[in-house]
């Protein structure tokens, strides 16, 4: 199943086209946009998690020099259309409103919007707004949010249960769950947040005389933002334009259109002024979507040899108060994918999404990744319970390539993956067996605690729901032969201007330098899915391929006509269209392009003038990618500090377009997983006050904490035309359980156990003291 398919451009580590402008300070991020008459916004936010608004006094703020408007719920909310951030997810979700009205539901909820001549003046005015709130008890602990007598986060909904999915336990499953070898564990994953280095932001220009709304926004998804802004402001969608040029990271946080951006758009529409809002870091930490907060009770039933017979997972995700994108939304996939790459005949699940008075949940690089976290941590627990090495357990249970396609017990069809190969490759690169010997020696002779952990997963990238699986490319050949490609993507670090140009150059047989990608602008691109969900290579890539096929066929038809040759005998290579095997009989690509536009009498009779095509690709529901992460750690027994010794990723994303970019994506994801497992923790106190509101408290990994990541590649082409698979999220999916398992493996030497993250020094020391 392993092949190598490097082409002239596809498969090459082409240097990124985006880099020169970004390296010289000439990128164009949203805060770099300056327009005539532009005013600056800031929000006054709730410092109470749940309570009734008694009084909002804006008089002093409004009187300040330079203040244009001080807007409250009464000014904006009655004019707001549908505030649902996306219609993509069908659950209606929380009753979102532009500004808090009557009550507040989490610390950070916007109450007042200030519009002023500068950000400095806007913040001065914000300090002058007096807000009086009567606090009520808040719902903070998601595990008790459904108990009797607990307050209701959204009184309109009458329940704290946002969504629920249940697969009943079959009699067969019930029987194995009552067997001799049943392992049950509860795992908790703590709350953290995506933290793009560029916070969110938007500039909105509304021109009343023409009724057009034009926004520049830090977004992964300009077309979604356009639709959302149209719904909220009432400006018809064809008069709304959203541009996002350079976007300073997103990781899911900028995929849907959050409340503040919609509120600023509504204010711009109401005031008829051009408004800029740039989120500050405190706002980003407390009020941009959070992620991960999960808990699950997991059960594995095994036979006497450790083979998995059945699983059950009872999962709760903390949706917060106002999740970005309906409910938290990831829980269903946590349940459906829980058995992952292992053979298992029986599975059942319950997943619940629960409202709390905290910042809303949203997408973050593998939104459902708790399925991998919970499963892989369970695998090690089950292996230990059965007296097996975790690698041996995986070898015994992993779905062999020969048994593909394999239907998961939840009904999902798994195919074109290589979990077994990546498991073996990762184990080989990290030297699993040698490490085991060394581990025993270090512990026996020096008392040192080192451990090894694995994280094996399959990822169902691409879209199961409209429009997540579809992208449209417009491939336009200019009269001089150079090509402009328009895509509905919203790149934010992935190098789409480079990779998609590689694909187009490969498909058209022209030079990479002669292809330009235009994206991130709703007005000049066809409706598209944006950039997220590990979808670009498969979906945008194949939309480019489909459009190129049309363009190529037409170019060949023109060339055939010019040369009086049969189209079937022609091929395009190095920008020449030549008779196959007779390269001297050829016509230049540039000449065909010129004739198609400027000497149209020479075209075949009846042929349409020009050389361009618009084509759409609809992905199959699943294009599975997979990887195995392996890492080794050492625990300092005196301080509880975890150090990562080595980190290996063996991945299979099918045909790589640009290996340099693939490895860069993997590395970024892994380090987010390292941060998320060891350092990053968004903390609320019992009253719902956020305690980690700066980078002094919310700790991101730095150069001194990260290891050098080692890579292995396995290539199993997907069944889509280019053979690519999604790979943007995977690094952040496989890493948390690999690190957790390595730490748990080290702690097992002294009989200590862990069941939750983050793995802070306190947690580790506590485990050693309590258990050992």
């Amino acid at each position, binding site marked *: 199943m392993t092949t190598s398919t490097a082409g002239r451009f596809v498969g090459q580590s082409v240097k*990124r086209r985006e880099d*020169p402008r970004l*390296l010289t300070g000439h990128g164009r991020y949203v805060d770099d946009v300056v327009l005539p008459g532009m005013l600056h916004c800031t929000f006054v936010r709730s410092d109470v998690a749940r309570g009734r608004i008694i009084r909002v006094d804006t008089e002093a703020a409004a009187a300040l020099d330079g203040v244009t408007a001080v807007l409250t719920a009464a000014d904006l909310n009655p004019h707001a259309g549908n505030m649902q951030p996306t219609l993509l997810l069908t659950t209606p979700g929380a009753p979102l409103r532009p500004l808090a009205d009557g009550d507040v539901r989490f610390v950070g909820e916007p109450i007042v919007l200030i519009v002023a001549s500068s950000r400095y003046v806007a913040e001065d005015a914000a300090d002058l707004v007096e807000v009086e709130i009567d606090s009520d008890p808040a719902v903070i602990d998601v595990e008790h949010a459904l108990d009797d007598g607990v307050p209701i986060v959204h009184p309109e909904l009458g329940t704290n249960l946002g969504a629920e999915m249940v697969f009943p336990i079959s009699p067969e499953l019930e029987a194995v769950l009552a067997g001799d070898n049943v392992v049950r564990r509860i795992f908790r994953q703590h709350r953290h947040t995506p933290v793009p280095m560029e916070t969110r932001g938007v500039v909105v220009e509304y021109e009343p005389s023409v009724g057009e709304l034009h926004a520049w926004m830090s977004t992964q998804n300009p077309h979604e933002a356009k639709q959302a802004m149209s719904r909220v402001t009432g400006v018809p969608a064809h008069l709304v334009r959203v541009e996002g040029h350079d976007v300073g*990271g997103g990781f899911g946080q900028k995929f849907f259109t959050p409340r503040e951006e919609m509120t600023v758009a509504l204010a711009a529409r109401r005031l008829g002024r051009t408004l800029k809002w740039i989120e500050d870091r405190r706002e980003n930490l407390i009020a941009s979507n959070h992620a991960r907060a999960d808990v699950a009770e997991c059960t594995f039933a095994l036979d006497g040899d450790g083979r998995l017979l059945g699983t059950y997972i009872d999962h709760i995700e903390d949706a917060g108060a106002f999740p970005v994108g309906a409910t938290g939304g990831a829980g269903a996939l946590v349940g459906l994918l829980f058995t992952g790459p292992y053979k298992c005949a029986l599975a059942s699940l319950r997943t619940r999404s629960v409202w709390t008075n905290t910042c809303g949940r949203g997408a973050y690089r593998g939104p459902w990744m708790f399925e991998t976290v919970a499963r892989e941590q369970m695998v090690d627990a089950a292996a230990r319970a059965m007296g097996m090495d975790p690698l041996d357990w995986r070898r015994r249970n992993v779905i062999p390539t020969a048994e593909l396609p394999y239907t998961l017990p939840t009904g999902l069809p798994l195919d074109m993956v290589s979990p077994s190969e990546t498991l073996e490759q990762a184990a080989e690169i990290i030297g699993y067996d040698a490490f085991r010997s060394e581990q025993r020696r270090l512990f026996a002779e020096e008392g040192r605690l080192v451990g090894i952990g694995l994280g094996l997963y399959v990822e169902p990238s691409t879209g199961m729901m409209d429009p997540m699986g579809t992208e449209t490319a417009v491939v336009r050949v200019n009269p001089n032969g150079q090509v402009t490609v328009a895509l509905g993507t919203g790149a934010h*670090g992935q190098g789409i201007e480079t990779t998609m140009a590689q694909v187009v150059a490969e498909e058209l047989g022209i030079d990479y330098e002669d292809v330009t990608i235009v994206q991130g602008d709703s007005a000049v691109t066809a409706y598209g899915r944006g950039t997220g969900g590990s979808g670009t290579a498969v979906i945008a890539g194949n939309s480019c391929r489909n459009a190129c096929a049309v363009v190529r066929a037409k170019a060949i038809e023109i060339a055939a006509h010019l040369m009086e040759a049969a189209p079937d005998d022609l091929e395009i290579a190095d920008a020449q269209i030549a008779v196959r095997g007779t390269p001297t009989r050829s016509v230049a690509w540039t000449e065909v392009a010129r004739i198609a536009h400027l000497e149209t009498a020479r075209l075949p009779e009846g042929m349409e003038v020009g050389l361009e095509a618009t084509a759409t690709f609809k992905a199959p529901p699943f294009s599975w990618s997979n990887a195995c992460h392996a890492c080794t750690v050492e625990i300092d027994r005196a301080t509880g500090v975890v150090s990562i010794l080595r980190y290996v990723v063996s991945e299979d994303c099918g045909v790589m377009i640009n290996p*340099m970019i693939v490895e*860069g994506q993997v*590395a970024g994801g892994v380090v987010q997983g390292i941060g998320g497992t060891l350092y990053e923790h968004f903390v609320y106190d019992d009253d719902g006050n956020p305690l980690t509101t700066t980078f*002094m408290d919310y700790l991101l990994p*730095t150069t001194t904490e990260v290891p050098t990541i080692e890579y292995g590649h396995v290539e199993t082409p997907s069944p889509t035309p280019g053979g690519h698979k999604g790979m943007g999220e995977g690094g952040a999916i496989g890493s948390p359980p690999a690190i957790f398992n390595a730490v748990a493996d080290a702690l097992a030497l002294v009989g200590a156990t862990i069941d939750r993250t983050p793995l802070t020094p306190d947690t580790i020391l506590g485990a050693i003291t309590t258990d050992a």
Partner: protein
Amino acid sequence: MLPVEMTVNGERRRGVVDARRTLADFLREECALTGTHLGCEHGVCGACTVLLDGEAVRACLIFAVQAGGAAVTTIEGLGGPDGALSPVQDAFREEHGLQCGFCTPGFVVSVTALLQENPKPSETEIREALSGNLCRCTGYQGIIGAVKRAAEGR
């Protein structure tokens, strides 16, 4: 309002600013040099790093008036006038030391200062020198590779 004058990327710049105006905002707004980015505005992330009389500083923690009379170099001042990349910038491109590019100006300026002070840093020295700059995309792999490449003059 206070008058301020400084040299930015070799050009004399004058302005009249609030005492509380940060150097970062002065560079971004008065000088229209938007390559200096604000990632946290509390001195942790390093995205706003510029050279002040040759020393790497955080432009979000310095008031514009404090830079009066100084020579400031921003990311825009490091490459050639024809758009040519500096050796450090080129090394970042070669080693894939950037993805979204938002933290990149701060890293490039910090690395430029590091290599001026210590032209042949060890890997440990590189990691320690850059521990005050946050990157969320690259996992720092390409960044460390870029510093090594630039130091080796490859």
